[in-house]
């Protein structure tokens, strides 16, 4: 986990294709000049022409898959507002501004440990890339996925590369475990797993519950946070999270860490939930 992150660049890339993979959930494949991106890193896209200033800010998205042969990456996103709408409407061959890769990456677990990936909603994409990469390195991750209902769940074919063992929960009980994904985590941690390490990404409340559960069980937990971002590369200090153990810091200047550059992945015990 201690290799340096690849250097970010600001380039124009091309859309290969966009497909709807679940209700209002889209997958866009981009042709990129450099696929050196580590699991957990994200990119900032600008889905508009040079002439237009709208949508104004870029859209931060996690990288969900990388194809080194084809020189493509995939992003998976829910259409929720102007930026995701603009991205989704780009045609094959259209250009999109691409800034990245940005942020730190998921720390690799100790050899032999069992990675438990806990994702909810739009937090699932980075775990797909991470799980895929872990398996290449010989780990056998378990992937727990929560969504509001069956039609919001990503299809098996997208999750399969990330884990042989995929378990699903839906809030409304239409698929898998009825209830929150934390229910699945509860059961998983009850199993006799050799040194489990939890990695989570999803809605704040979900991750907070995951972090609490891990703290209770004394299981290491790494969370990939989301915050509103302006720049994505550390300069605006807008995307902050409050650090735990502020007493140990040399000055109040350090009370808040930037999610985009100090994260997005944090040891769950080091931040205030």
């Amino acid at each position, binding site marked *: 986990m201690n290799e340096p992150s690849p250097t970010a660049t600001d380039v124009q890339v091309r859309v290969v294709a966009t497909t709807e993979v679940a209700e209002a959930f889209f997958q866009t494949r981009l042709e990129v000049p450099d696929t050196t991106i580590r699991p957990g890193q994200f990119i900032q896209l600008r889905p508009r022409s040079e002439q237009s200033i*709208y949508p104004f800010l*870029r859209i931060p998205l996690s990288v969900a898959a990388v194809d080194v042969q084809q020189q493509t990456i995939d992003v998976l996103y829910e259409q929720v507002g102007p930026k995701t709408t603009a991205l989704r409407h780009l045609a094959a061959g259209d250009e999109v501004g691409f800034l990245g890769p940005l942020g730190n990456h998921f720390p690799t677990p100790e050899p032999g440990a069992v990675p438990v990936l806990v994702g909810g909603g739009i937090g699932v994409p980075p775990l797909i890339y991470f799980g895929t990469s872990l398996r290449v390195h010989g780990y056998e991750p378990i992937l727990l996925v929560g969504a509001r209902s069956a039609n919001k769940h990503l299809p098996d074919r997208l999750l399969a590369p990330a884990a042989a063992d995929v378990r699903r929960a839906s809030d409304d009980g239409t698929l898998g475990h009825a209830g929150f994904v934390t229910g699945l985590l509860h059961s998983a941690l009850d199993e006799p797993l050799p040194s489990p390490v939890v990695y989570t990404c999803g809605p704040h409340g979900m991750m907070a519950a995951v972090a609490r559960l891990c703290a209770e069980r004394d299981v290491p937990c790494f969370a990939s946070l989301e915050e*509103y971002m302006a720049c994505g590369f550390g*300069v605006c200090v*807008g995307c*902050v999270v409050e650090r735990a153990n502020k007493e140990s810091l040399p000055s*109040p*200047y350090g*009370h808040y860490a930037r999610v985009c550059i100090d994260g997005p992945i944090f040891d769950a015990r080091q931040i205030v939930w």
Partner: protein
Amino acid sequence: MTDLRTNFAGIELRNPVLLASGTCGYGDELAPFLDLSRLGGIVTKTITPEPRAGNAPPRIVETAAGMLNSIGLQNPGLKGFIDDKWPYLAALDTKIIVNIAAPTAALHAEMAARLDDVEGIAGIEVNISSPNMKDGGMLFGCSPTASHGVIAAVRAATRRPVIAKLTPNVTDIAAIARAVVDGGADGIAMINTLLGMAVDWRTRKPILGNITGGLSGPAIKPVALALLWKVHQAVDVPIMGLGGITSAEDALEFLVTGATAVQVGTATFVEPGGAADIVAGIESHCAAAGMARIGELVGTLGV
């Protein structure tokens, strides 16, 4: 070829394009994306006498053609700046203007005096206008008397050019401008952000942790130009124009309206290398228009 060199209140700039305070940090995060030596200069993120934690998140939200921020001046404080941030800045081949804010006029002066010992600083920009600086209750920048007091104190404490940064959230910005010039300001930078707010009606909560924040970006460009025009007519010191600049054309509009130099703010978040493109665009537009020196354009608005 148009000569872009610009003298701003005694500061010799390579060209009239700087990065605005709070949008370029202390230079280091931007360096991978932007060759800072291509710019006229950069204005550091505001520093205060003591380190500040800043406001509770969320601190950012996008709005129509703009954004709100409530960073709350998170900064390492004067000492932290000098020890940890200045060495990097000092090595850059561009002019560095240090932006300061403090709860009292006397503390402003103390900061300016201490910075006078630091070699290489090109000028001091005094942020009497951040909606995130609440220590002084009402902002200095909202009252001509208070503005005058702060600027006069800084002017007396430093040998460097002093630039007063004004807020647009006032009834009569020309009165504030006259007050700071009267207090000894060598230049003016304007505008800081407009007061703004965003609300989530479903949760019935403001989106920013701080409730309100500062509005910036293209949305505010018309306000920035109107206030620049007012101040340009009211005072004789040079003005750095800013507010919503994202292109060379935007920058040229500010120059024509009366700005001697411009600052690029929020646009850098979207196009980290954009300020250098703006320099290039200004140069090619002016060359095409047959201008020998960029100064020929400044304040030429015909009404």
